[in-house]
């Protein structure tokens, strides 16, 4: 060390210099990077906000099998606030629910349909009326296909809508009416137009089959030959008189006239006797529709076509005194016609010829149609089919699942339960024990939810002092909204001033307790 200096070449000197410089640069970069990062507890200057103490909280120790008991998720978040506000939960927070918003905006359900269940008198139609009002305020048109009480006529009138009252001496609806399909098909592009026309044809056929099944009652399935015969008869009519809507009597005439097309479809090969054997059965069923029992309801052309730019209700309350199967047939006709019109409207909207419009379709009294004949579930599925889900919400209503269980064949029962299972959301009012049990087989209901639903059917108490008509049953207006596996949302419907003024006091919770329904068949 004290001796001679080590001989260092310039190359080594330069390497050492470069190393030192790199080291200096690295340190400078680090200083620059950490210059703007405050020290651990914050900037220590005045008004710098440094923290005086950052100490740990008192700690407790346990095994994870025990500490999990301090479960952080026991308080849930409320229902989403999207849709029509329908009521309030127990703690006063608002519940908003309607199938269209929950499908399109909130994406909570997989298709925009709801199924409403509940014993009579507990306010199902009030719930749906609130949804109609709310959706009308959002620009959606409520369409009620078949009002039996009537529950919705006042509402639709107040909304400035069209009331079509069916019955003898009033309006008529032709079951084979599928709207002005030919005219519309000509206006839109050829492929869509062709689809529209084919759908209309199939709808007409389904309607005829449905009517025959209802007329034949328990005995009657429609055989495949008869179905083929009817399809051929409809085609013959279409070729002979394109653009004109046939009446049932027209179809009977076509069948009777023994056209070749019909003959080919039934494989009678020109044999008139064999043909008559098959055709007469069909004609007999169709002619029965004109008899007095069926009130001449199905034999006239449609007097008032349904408009698509305003709310609509088909008021069938005048026919309430008719028998079950007639009522079922009328309701099914309304549904079919209504859906045909909505289909046409959607075709026009898709082609850009009409402004986009949302619809909310209310189908009340599902059980009347189901009990009208055999195999109605398939017909309903066919006749309530739409080309697109978007833009149309549906609400189907019935009393309890036991109505669906009362169907004669097991296959029908299974398919009927499918209505509930396939609905996007299910709204239940109070149900009896066994009914709640039946519902829990289709929908995952927890024990607590079942207990809540059955508690809502507790009978009202006798109160000697007050007038009895002022007492509402305790479960009135209380519903549980159930979507898939999520926990149900219990709510109480609270009416506003505007709604209370809309109904008069007698009809406030008009469902089945008062009103014209007194002489009805329920």
């Amino acid at each position: 060390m004290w001796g001679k200096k080590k001989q260092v070449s310039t190359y080594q000197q330069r390497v050492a210099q470069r190393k030192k410089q790199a080291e200096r640069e690295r340190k400078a970069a680090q200083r620059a990077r950490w210059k703007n990062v405050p020290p651990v507890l914050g900037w220590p200057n005045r008004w710098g906000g440094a923290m005086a103490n950052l100490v740990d909280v008192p700690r407790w120790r346990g095994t994870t099998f025990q500490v999990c008991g301090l479960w952080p998720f026991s308080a849930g978040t409320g229902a989403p606030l999207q849709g029509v506000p329908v009521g309030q939960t127990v703690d006063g927070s608002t519940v908003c629910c309607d199938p269209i918003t929950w499908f399109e905006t909130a994406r909570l359900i997989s298709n925009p349909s709801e199924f409403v269940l509940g014993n009579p008198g507990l306010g199902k139609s009030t719930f749906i009326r609130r949804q109609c009002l709310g959706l009308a305020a959002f620009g959606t048109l409520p369409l009620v296909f078949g009002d039996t009480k009537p529950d919705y006529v006042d509402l639709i009138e107040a909304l400035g809508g069209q009331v079509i009252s069916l019955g003898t001496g009033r309006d008529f609806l032709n079951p084979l009416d599928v709207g002005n399909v030919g005219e519309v098909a000509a206006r839109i592009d050829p492929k869509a137009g062709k689809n529209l026309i084919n759908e209309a044809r199939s709808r007409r056929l389904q309607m005829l089959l449905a009517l025959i099944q209802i007329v034949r009652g328990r005995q009657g399935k429609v055989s495949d030959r008869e179905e083929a015969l009817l399809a051929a008869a409809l085609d013959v009519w279409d070729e002979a008189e394109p653009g004109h809507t046939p009446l049932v009597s027209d179809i009977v005439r076509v069948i009777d006239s023994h056209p070749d097309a019909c003959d080919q479809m039934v494989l009678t090969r020109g044999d008139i006797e064999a043909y008559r054997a098959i055709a007469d059965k069909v004609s007999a069923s169709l002619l029965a529709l004109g008899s007095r029992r069926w009130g001449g309801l199905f034999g006239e052309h449609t007097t008032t076509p349904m408009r698509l730019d305003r709310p609509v209700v088909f008021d069938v309350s005048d026919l309430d005194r008719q028998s079950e199967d007639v009522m079922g047939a009328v309701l099914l006709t309304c549904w079919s016609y209504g859906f045909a019109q909505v289909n046409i409207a959607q075709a026009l909207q898709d082609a850009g010829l009409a402004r986009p419009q949302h619809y909310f379709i209310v189908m009340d009294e599902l059980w009347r149609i189901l009990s009208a004949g055999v195999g109605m579930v398939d017909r309903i599925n066919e006749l309530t089919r739409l080309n697109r889900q978007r833009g149309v919400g549906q609400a189907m209503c019935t009393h309890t699942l036991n109505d669906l269980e009362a169907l004669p064949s097991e296959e029908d029962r299974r398919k009927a339960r499918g209505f509930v299972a396939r609905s996007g959301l299910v709204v239940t009012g109070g149900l009896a024990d066994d009914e709640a049990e039946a519902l829990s087989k289709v929908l995952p209901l927890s024990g607590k939810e079942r207990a809540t639903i059955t508690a809502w059917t507790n009978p009202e108490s006798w109160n000697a002092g007050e007038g009895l008509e002022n007492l509402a049953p305790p479960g009135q207006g209380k519903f549980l909204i159930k979507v898939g596996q999520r926990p149900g949302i219990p709510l109480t419907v609270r009416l506003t001033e505007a709604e209370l003024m809309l109904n008069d006091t007698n009809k406030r919770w008009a469902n089945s307790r008062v009103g014209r329904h007194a002489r009805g068949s329920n």
Partner: protein
Amino acid sequence: MSAPSEVMYGNWHHPRSALLGTLSTGMTIIGLVATLLFIVIAPFSLLAGLVVLGLGGVAIAMTYRAEGNRSMLEGVMMRLAWWKAKAKGQTGMVGGLLGEKANGAAKLPGAGGAIRLWDCQTATGLEFVLVEHQRVGSYSLVFEAAPEGNDLVDPHVINTRVNVWAGFLTDLGYEPGLQGASVVIETVPDTGERLRNNIEPKLADDAPEVALATMHDVMRAYPDGAAVANAYITLTYGAGKHDTAGIAAELASRVPQIMGVLNGSGAAGVRPVTASRLARVVRQAYDPQAARVFAEADAMGERVDIDWNEVGVVGAKTQWDCYIHEGARSITWEMKSAPRGVVNSSVLHHLLAPNHATSRKRVTLLYTPMSADSASRTVEKDVTDAKQRYLGARKPTERDRQSLDKAHQAAAEEARGAGLIDFGLVVTVTDQWDSDTSGAEATVETMAASSKIRLRKCWGHQDAAFLVGLPLGVVPNRYSWMPAAMRDAF
């Protein structure tokens, strides 16, 4: 129906080490040192020796820590730090344009200023945020979920969910490099703003009169919207030798696994939080008025992105018993004692549920899991310590015997596969700065009482406790100068 199948939980204790009877390790050492010094000094000067003994006794007394409280020494040190900070003017904070070091940014005050956010993506394209705590070298993941609650849910379903949660807590012990985890449940009761924001933009101009009148009536008559409860789950990892990119790559593969483990624990819709969402949450925490602005923007369908440089405060002031930030006042409590005895899984329900008396409430559960290998050592040591206390004390109490039983139970559970976890709880309540706090305070006391826990205000560290209560993954014991082993000794 539900009573027989109700599962009860308990058996947590305040960790305390014991070396000689009831004295903790630290106190024993002080005592030994004092005795040694006495023995050395006494031959020269008895008075000095007695003074040393006296000082030793005082030191032991000051480090004695009752369950859940702080020792006198800690209290004195905290007060000194507080006075020093006040004297230096550090309790106030000015950020934004007038801040000296802020460079125009409004970052989080104090220890939060060193936090940086990174936008990352998993292999499947899921975006998540990586929160970097620069000065302590840790990184946090944040997840968001909606708690499902236990209304109308069957007890056996709740038990299943709690078991899944236990599985999550156990898995925390196996995560490599995990320093801490936290669950933040934030509730905001609604003032009707959300309902109005959801309905008004949708009303059609050409709708019928009756319908519009009804909707206006509803907005007037249904004032309370629906209270919102959000859950955030954060996990904080130590950086080790990795740099940010390395940590991000490693944690990106952990994200789907963690989401899978959390699934079914009662938190629905677990998803990772993005950087802008986290910034928004923190901004709403520091400035509750901003929540209204964001809600309106949401109703309009606009997207609002907050930069991390705007997320903090422009003006704030810490006081001994509250924290004032941006026109709002927050009070933070910490859990002094956990529920005694046994409780069921909905014990925290009243504490967590939205409450109309408080405008914004945040309950944070802080977990420090022990790694699986040290857990078994600790459990055995706990058994040994409990035996020491029971057998070494002159008058063994029933409580000592019970704590021995509990230590045995914990050891048995650990052998069955449980992990050992340290937990704490922090409650923050935010209101307007000029509102009367006595109502909110009374409400919190009541909620704590019904949840069987005892709370204590975070005297002298309101701002720090506020930061710990946010879903940012701040692990408080990383910020102290004392290493962990020394802290445990007292």
